[in-house]
């Protein structure tokens, strides 16, 4: 009787604990799966400090890059380290403002930047367009973390034309 009792207790224990063990192993597997998503931390365990990646260089070639769509704010093709854009100054405007472009030979800010929200033109760039970095950014000389699936409109149209011809 006593033996039987022990056996039954052991059996019960096994039944109760099995899901717990299984869940442990499943959790570990899940974590490994989750960690396959590309992040800045990569596969670093949560309790480890990752050795930081090298900081990529800002592209400083002064060569205009094509826009991916017509409304895209042009990219900044030079470094802007320690450029101040604040209440007191706008360093960008010391080259790109209308008055300064003759000397600097930099492209002038687009005329849309002089418009207020009602479409009226102001004498100076509109306050809502003052903070250049809200839209215009530099590019880094780095490998993208995730693949970009953006397709240019022209490529799309070409695809459509060619597929129409086939059918």
């Amino acid at each position: 009787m006593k033996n039987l009792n022990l056996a039954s207790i052991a059996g019960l224990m096994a039944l109760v604990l099995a899901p717990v063990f299984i869940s442990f192993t499943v959790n570990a597997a899940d974590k490994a799966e989750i960690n396959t998503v590309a992040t800045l931390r990569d596969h670093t365990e949560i309790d480890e400090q990752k050795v930081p990646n090298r900081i990529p260089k800002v592209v400083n070639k002064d060569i205009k890059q094509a826009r991916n769509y017509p409304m895209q704010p042009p990219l900044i093709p030079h470094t802007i380290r320690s450029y101040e854009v604040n209440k007191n100054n706008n360093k960008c405007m010391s080259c790109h403002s209308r008055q300064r472009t003759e000397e600097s030979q930099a492209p002038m800010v687009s005329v849309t930047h002089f418009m207020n929200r009602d479409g009226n033109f102001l004498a100076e760039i509109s306050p809502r367009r003052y903070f250049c970095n809200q839209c215009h950014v530099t590019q880094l000389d780095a490998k993208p973390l995730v693949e970009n699936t953006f397709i240019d409109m022209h490529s799309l149209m070409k695809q459509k034309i060619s597929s129409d011809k086939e059918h």
Partner: protein
Amino acid sequence: MKNLLMIGWKTIRKPSGYYSLGALVIGGFIAGIIFWGGFNTALEITNTEEFCISCHEMENNVYEELKTTIHFSNRSGVRATCPDCHVPHNWTDKIARKMKASKEVWGAIFGTINTREKFLVHRKRLAQNEWERLKANDSLECRNCHNFDYMDFTEQSERASKQHSGALATGEKTCIDCHKGIAHQLPDMKGVEGW
């Protein structure tokens, strides 16, 4: 008072009746070395960054701003300290600047810029002083390190080499004309040429 001065004057004028000429000459010579050495040592102490930022006005404002710039931390580890840019290296110019700095001692005593707000109010005036000085001496303090003759334009970005081989080479412009705010934040630049 007048009598006291006369006694002093007579003592200086009187020939030495006790000390030998040798003792006076050699003693004077040694005292001269000690005095001159002491003077220069004191001058050099006031020419260090530790001295500059011993005033909180300098440490909490301009020094904090400098820390974020390339003149503080960069790839090669060469850095500019306060006196490298703000005190002329040439002796006579240095003494002239040190004499002018006595006004800064006055400012420190009476707390002209002892808060950030006060500092910002005075910032434009203070910056203009420095721009004027650098403009007048053709950015000498920049050129103490950045020698035009040894600039390799091919190593510079296209824009930089164009500016440096053009306006800078002809002497039409000097460093400070374009590189304002390179080591500290800028004041309100309204009305400043080139902004």
